[in-house]
């Protein structure tokens, strides 16, 4: 038996491949419908190459895969040679045991603080996407989409197609950065087709993307757009102000490593500073019988996730992985690396915050408090800064702020964030909250 955790592109591909090759597969996901974040939908997936999603959904439904939906995994334990996956579903705790695990838990938008980022109306592009695709709701009428990365395109065009006025689309990086990765585009010609698809939509809705610009503040419906240099420092006196009801700002993605961490899978730091799981050519993690596929091995998008998922599923089912599949993964990996090169996040973001800007949203810890924990109290890493200020101790357990706190502390101490710190920050033995009653009732 193989348990696949996560029903996004990677998890679906893994479950389908394993099942197709004779394995018993259980697919667990916390959402009501398949698709993860990439393929959010209410009735059917819409958007670029949505047929791909439909086909995979159909295959998974037709296979004898047990799909546990609205099931949230909170921990994983070893039971002799088996893995026991503990999950919450319908207000109860249950568990599923299997010899093999495939983790495909995906990623979430990375956020950077700026004055007003915590106000109503400020959200991630993922939130605007989830509201639209998952619930049929437009986040607002007048929207600025900003940050960096190719994800801004489907978000802006999707919102425009549903009637929103995209007042501006701003990427902090210059598109000329793509010239650094000509091989990536040549190896992935389908990306040109995708680019043309979005270019047509941008033209249709009169959205003119602007580059090397960021949202530098948001307040009472007023968003300030500033020009930045290549280090993301704001260039003085080049601001523009718009009236909007929503600013959707995102800076790429971060994987949630909680479950793999609980299973003991080794991590490394990717070239963009993101902590990810170490895997081999068959998507095996450092723990025997645990495979990892998708964003948790390195942010790379849906294409790469699908291939990694398929490879993990095949490997878990004891099958050989074809050269074609490996080659395709390599092509997509090269493209993923190009994404990192084209859309880097520079330290200058730290200069956007004022002393009163919230850094830890859950515990309302301001920039001034983080600074003081370093300059006055001697914090030298984010763990200590967290102990002094409570940053990262709230409901989200640092998912939103802890990387930012690490980088702010590193900036103040003029040290780099150590790999160990990046990896330790994602260590969460409780992957999702569980009520004390349910937890205690489960004791032996």
């Amino acid at each position: 038996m193989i348990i696949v955790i996560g029903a996004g592109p990677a998890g679906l591909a893994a479950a389908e491949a394993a099942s197709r090759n004779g394995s018993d597969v259980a697919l667990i996901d916390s959402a009501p419908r398949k698709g993860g974040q990439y393929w959010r939908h209410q009735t059917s997936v819409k958007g670029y190459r949505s047929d791909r999603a439909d086909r995979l959904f159909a295959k998974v439904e037709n296979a004898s895969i047990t799909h546990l939906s609205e099931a949230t995994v909170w921990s994983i334990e070893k039971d002799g040679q088996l893995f026991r996956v503990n999950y919450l579903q319908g207000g109860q705790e249950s568990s599923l045991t299997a010899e093999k695990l495939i983790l495909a838990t995906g990623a979430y938008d990375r956020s950077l603080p700026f004055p007003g980022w915590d106000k109503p109306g400020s959200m991630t592009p993922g939130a605007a996407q989830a509201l639209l695709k998952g619930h049929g709701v437009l986040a607002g009428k007048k929207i600025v989409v900003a940050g960096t990365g190719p994800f801004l395109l489907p978000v802006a065009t999707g919102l425009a197609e549903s009637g929103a006025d995209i007042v501006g689309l701003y990427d902090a990086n210059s598109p000329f950065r793509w010239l650094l990765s000509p091989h990536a585009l040549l190896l992935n010609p389908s990306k040109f087709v995708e680019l043309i698809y979005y270019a047509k939509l941008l033209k249709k809705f009169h959205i003119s993307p602007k580059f090397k610009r960021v949202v530098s503040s948001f307040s009472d419906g007023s968003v300030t757009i500033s020009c930045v240099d290549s280090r993301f420092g704001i260039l003085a006196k080049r601001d523009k102000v718009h009236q909007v009801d929503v600013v959707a700002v995102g800076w790429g993605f971060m994987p949630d490593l909680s479950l793999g961490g609980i299973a003991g899978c080794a991590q490394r730091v990717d070239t963009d500073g993101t902590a990810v799981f170490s895997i081999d050519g068959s998507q095996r993690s450092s723990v025997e019988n645990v495979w990892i596929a998708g964003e948790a091995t390195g942010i790379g998008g849906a294409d790469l996730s699908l291939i990694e998922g398929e490879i993990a599923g095949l490997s878990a089912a004891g099958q050989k992985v074809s050269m074609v599949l490996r080659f395709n993964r390599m092509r997509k990996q090269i493209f993923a690396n190009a994404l990192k090169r084209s859309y880097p996040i520079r330290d200058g973001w730290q200069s956007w915050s004022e002393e009163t800007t919230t850094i830890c949203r859950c515990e309302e810890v301001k920039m001034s408090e983080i600074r003081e924990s370093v300059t006055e109290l001697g914090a030298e890493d984010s763990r200590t800064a967290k102990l002094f200020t409570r940053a990262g101790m709230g409901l989200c357990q640092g998912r939103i702020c802890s990387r930012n706190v690490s980088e702010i502390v590193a900036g103040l101490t003029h040290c780099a964030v150590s790999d160990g710190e990046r990896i330790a920050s994602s260590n969460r033995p409780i992957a999702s909250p569980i009520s004390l009653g349910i937890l205690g009732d489960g004791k032996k």
Partner: protein
Amino acid sequence: MQNPDAIVIGAGIVGASVALSLTNSGFKVLVIDRGAVSSGTTGAGEGNILVSDKDPGPELTLALRSRDLWFEMQEDVGDTFELEAKGGVVVARNDDGPLMKLAAEQSHHGVKVQLLDHASLHDLEPYLDRKFQSGVFYPQDSQCQPMLAAAHVIRTVVRRGGAFISQAKVTKISVSEGHVTGIETTQGNFSAPIIVNATGTWAGELAQMAGSHLPIAPRKGFILVTEPTQKYVFHKVYDSDYVANVASSDADLQTSTVVEGTRAGTILIGASRERVGFDGSMNYEILRRLAAQATSLFPVLRDVQLLRAYRGFRPYAPDHLPVIGEDATVKGLWHSAGHEGAGIGLAPGSAALITDAILGRESFMEASPFSPARFEKVLL
């Protein structure tokens, strides 16, 4: 600061307290730590300053004085570490005979106690399960934020002429003719006639560097932290099993119930004790047990969610008493370590004992029960 009057190794609450105490007596103190402030057990502490959990004896005497010194430290350093005389309520699960007997003995030794019947118990803790019939209130039990305390105390030491160097791992303790002369570290060499070993769970390792021996071992503990909630728990609340657990040497897992609210609105739940060396791995069965115990005390907590759990290693000596005093064989080397789960509460008291001993003056109590020399017999 190449030649301080004293070097304190360990920037947790115990090291910080002795550094402050020495500084206030006119010493120029250098504090070093192989990590940053509070990177050891202090960073995993709950912030307990308790008198309720101690049998009459030297540790209780130390705890009583230390608790008062905490409030003096707040006067000195400033109200910067959430010190609060919260009070503790010990509830009896079954037979309350032993608890009442302990309370009576403690009250003869300076502990303020208030015996609680059913009505007064539930007045103090309205959400406590009605099945608890009686208890004891200890108004002296207090709470602080230990990481902030250590940081602010060290900051005060530095302001008063001391120094603090982090990321300084001791590589050698220099001893000449049976007397300590200085240390070598990864951040430089320093000489001093007085060295204080305040390295907690690692105090044995450090003592060995000086050619001495301290049998201090780790006792692992977990703490559960809930989501922020409305106030359900008004004091530190524990069942009377807490007392029995602390004094026991059993290798097996022991759990008792400790529940308290915090200023941030979260609820902290403990306590477990295990002798598993430095194995820091998660143990979900223990978390379940702690959760079940807590909800047995406060049924309302059944619907409160656990957000995180963390662990720490309490440093303990075989006889469960701290080690405070000058090393038996290496003069000038002073230990303030092995405080087990009471390090925070006992820190300023231990600091006073050491400072008084170094200055050769009488202290508030006889420190010999804590003497490092008591282990000498074991070696022979």
